[in-house]
């Protein structure tokens, strides 16, 4: 297993290099940060000076060489916008995002697995119908809509929770609740689908013949077999949370990496864009590695 992890890490490193090259050159095709950073009535001298200061006047390949040269010394460059080391800015935001993503996904996974499995147990039953419709509505409801309605109801109307921001645990409830909804809806459906087929397999019959409790038939015998497609989707959802939940971060004033990234993209603050992509990519690589390990852990037939 250690060799597997080592090999994977090497392969991921290559992916990372590819990603950096891709992002570096592609993002520069989208315009010059000078125009966005400086006020529109800035003089030509100011512009030239700015370009020189940030090395924007060098050929792209030279800029790239310099970037990579610094990167291998773990220097991610300065954020033009924030006049701070880009990596500091990114890590600060990423810690928030990571917490938010982990907590949300943990809750989603547990809830969706339970609901989806129970729905699959009695296909077409009352619970199945109700949870089906609710999860589909959840999966297709616009999140900002829910976010704002939630603020109006729970914060302004009832005064139970703070509207937004960070600070206490109460501040986490609304963002997590809103973030929860979409992946929950999605994963319930995937769990249900996958569970329907596993619940009809022969080994489930064996378990019944053994007198195993229904709960453990569902959650021990069938679930583990059904988890393969489910963890893939969980991974996908987690990745998009790790990439930042822009809308939620924006509305709730949550200082996460999603908002940072979109702002940096729109402002062409390339060092921050690159740093945040490197950080989130690493997180996503690690997560995908864990998922692959989970596959093997779940299904012995996949182990090599």
């Amino acid at each position, binding site marked *: 297993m250690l060799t597997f992890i080592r090999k994977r890490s090497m*392969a*991921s490193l*290559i*992916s990372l290099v*590819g*990603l950096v090259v*891709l*992002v570096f050159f*592609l*993002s520069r*095709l*989208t*315009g010059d940060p000078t125009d966005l950073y400086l006020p529109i009535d800035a003089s030509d001298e100011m512009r030239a000076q700015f370009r020189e200061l940030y090395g924007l006047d060098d050929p792209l390949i030279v800029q790239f060489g310099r970037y990579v040269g610094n990167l291998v010394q773990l220097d991610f460059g300065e954020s033009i916008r924030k006049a701070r080391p880009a990596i500091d800015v990114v890590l600060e935001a990423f810690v928030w995002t990571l917490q938010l993503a982990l907590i949300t996904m943990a809750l989603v996974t547990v809830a969706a697995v339970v609901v989806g499995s129970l729905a699959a147990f009695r*296909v*077409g039953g009352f619970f199945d119908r109700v949870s*089906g*419709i609710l999860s*589909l*509505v959840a*999966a*297709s*409801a*616009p*999140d900002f*809509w829910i976010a*704002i*309605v939630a603020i109006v109801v729970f914060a302004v109307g009832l005064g139970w929770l703070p509207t937004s921001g960070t600070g206490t645990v109460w501040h986490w409830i609304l963002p997590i609740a809103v973030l929860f909804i*979409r992946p929950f809806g*999605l994963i319930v*459906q*995937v769990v249900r*689908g996958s569970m*329907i*087929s596993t619940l*009809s397999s022969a080994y489930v019959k064996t378990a019944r013949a053994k007198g195993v409790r229904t709960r453990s038939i569902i959650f021990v015998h069938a679930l583990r077999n059904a988890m*393969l*497609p489910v963890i*893939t*989707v969980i*991974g*996908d959802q987690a*990745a998009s949370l790790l*990439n*930042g939940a*822009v*809308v939620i971060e924006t509305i709730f004033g949550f200082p996460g990496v999603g908002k940072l*990234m*979109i702002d940096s*993209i*729109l402002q062409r603050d390339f060092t921050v*864009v690159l740093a945040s*992509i490197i950080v*989130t*990519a690493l997180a*996503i*690589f690690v997560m*995908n590695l864990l998922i692959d390990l989970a*596959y093997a852990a779940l*299904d012995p*037939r996949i182990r090599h």
Partner: protein
Amino acid sequence: MTEATPLPDEPSALRRFLRMLWADKFALAALIFLVVVVLMALLGPVLLGDVAQKQNLRGRNAPPFEWDRGWLWWMGADSLGRPLLARIIVAARNTMTVAAGAVIFSALIGTTLGLIAGYASRRVGEAIMRVADVIMSFPSLLLAVIVLYILGPSVTNVVIVLAITRIPVYLRTTRAEVLEIRERMFVSAARVMGASPRRIVLRHILPVVLPTLMTIATLDFAYVMLAESALSFLGIGIQPPEITWGLMIAQGKEHLTRAWWLSFWPGLAIILTTLSLNLLSNWMRIALDPTQRWRLEMRGRSHG
């Protein structure tokens, strides 16, 4: 040994399907709704294109359910006084083009790559997976900015952006399943018969993966519609005067607190479409699975 009697005729597949559809009234309603949406998409812009664009600043944000104003106004009017119902009908075309386009492309490409990654040699599989990692960690918003900056915002380009970002889910799901299914004995049996890898993958493995993919794809419909809304909102997606449901939601957000109907109706349209697609795909998953089909056939008999 007895003399062989010729095979009896199969009951017509179409008739069987219609019967199974009739058996599931939810799926039938879903299908009817989708047919209506498709008709809206095909005919809407031709029939109502002008009405939907005709502004009337005095009648802006007209509330819904004013029955005396003519049916086009039943859902109220938007901030330029345009009838929402007409706009929803007209927007169906772009919405469906974007959603179906993105989902179909990403599902096709992702599934194909996933099948290859799962069934081809280990090295090819790993390479594909690492590419998927890159796509997965490439922030969709940056991709959108790049593509739309270089190619300009258009329906096609939005489809391209969304399709690329959705590829990894299909790819990873498919591969994970293929790894398990390829070990099943009926796959070995097919190999013994000399079936080509293509045939094995398409005829024996794909049908087993398909239900899961279908669940994901229908939910992705909602995901894509909302992602498109986010892009529009950030100014990097489809832009007015083109309309999509997502864009209508994004625009209505500004007026959420005072004129909820602006974003409510398009949101409802998205939810209903997803719901219908999902009901239909659940039905299909049963109808296509011989071990589950009895559920529909039985019901059809007792009810019909």
